[in-house]
């Protein structure tokens, strides 16, 4: 259709590096481990990708997955680094001292990792898969968070996860990566803590305003009514 020129190939349009790095953020190459490439400078993103690929070549030889994990983590830290040093954006810091020794306190686990009991999907029996959830990120970010209830005696193997903001396949492989209920149960058996009857999870990708104004206070009220003394929170 259009006239090809020096910079134009009729068979394949050249792509910009910017378009490429942005494609990791819910685009053609959507990848929750690397979506921050979208917000880096071209140069930094290029260096991060090159460093990960360099490490891949090493790890294929050494089998040192810890090294790969370290490089991925360091790249994320760099990718999410705020433009300015972190400083409080809220004025107060509410703080409740633990009222009783931990062994007597009723502790609940609450994870933002989108964990739920298989067969008890908070979005209903036809809730989206992990892949489908990624396409729904905007709906999640505008929506209201739902609290999944997870009985204290739930087997870790009975849990699954879905989350449009991180790769919940990790939590599908091992829910304790973001929901350490088994560890807390072991600690309760050892007499270190006392567990509440119910534990909780929600999907942290949600309307922040609504969470702050409505949902989180309602959850706090719910837990206070159940005489929860302390909550172990897990971010993802």
């Amino acid at each position: 259709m259009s006239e090809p020129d020096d910079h134009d190939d009729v068979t394949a349009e050249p792509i910009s590096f910017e378009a490429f790095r942005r494609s990791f953020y819910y685009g053609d190459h959507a990848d929750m481990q690397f979506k921050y490439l979208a917000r880096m400078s071209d140069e930094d993103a290029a260096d991060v990708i090159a460093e990960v690929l360099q490490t891949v070549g090493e790890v294929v030889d050494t089998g040192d997955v810890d090294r790969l994990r370290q490089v991925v983590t360091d790249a994320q830290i760099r990718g999410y680094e705020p433009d300015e040093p972190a400083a409080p954006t809220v004025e107060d810091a509410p703080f409740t001292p633990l009222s009783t020794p931990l062994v007597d306190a009723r502790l609940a686990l609450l994870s933002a990792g989108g964990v739920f009991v298989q067969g008890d999907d908070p979005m209903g029996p036809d809730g989206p898969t992990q892949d489908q959830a990624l396409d729904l990120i905007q709906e999640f970010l505008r929506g209201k968070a739902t609290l999944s209830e997870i009985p204290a005696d739930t087997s870790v193997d009975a849990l699954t996860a879905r989350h449009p903001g991180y790769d919940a396949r990790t939590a599908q492989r091992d829910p304790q990566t973001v929901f350490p209920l088994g560890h807390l149960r072991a600690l309760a058996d050892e007499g270190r803590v006392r567990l509440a009857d119910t534990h909780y999870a929600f999907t942290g990708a949600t309307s922040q305003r609504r969470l702050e104004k409505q949902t989180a206070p309602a959850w706090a009220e719910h837990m206070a009514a159940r005489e929860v003394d302390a909550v172990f929170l897990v971010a993802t």
Partner: protein
Amino acid sequence: MCHGSVGLVARALEAAGIATVSVGVRAFLHRFVELQVPRAVITPHPMGRTIGSVDDRVTQRRVVDAGLSLLEGASAPGTFVDLATGQ
């Protein structure tokens, strides 16, 4: 995002008289700082593996232990334990 959500929930719980400890990863430490999370354990893990790698029970347990100790030990808001540096 999720670290911000956890920060908001932690604040609401504390305001309602419930003590909290929040576990997050280093990449999103700044979100906890911004929201003045009362007690936080920062882990040196990639996002989505806050407590520890898949099936790494030893590390996971260590993180949970650190969280419980902080819940007991913190006497003022803004007490952060960084497991990467051992602070």
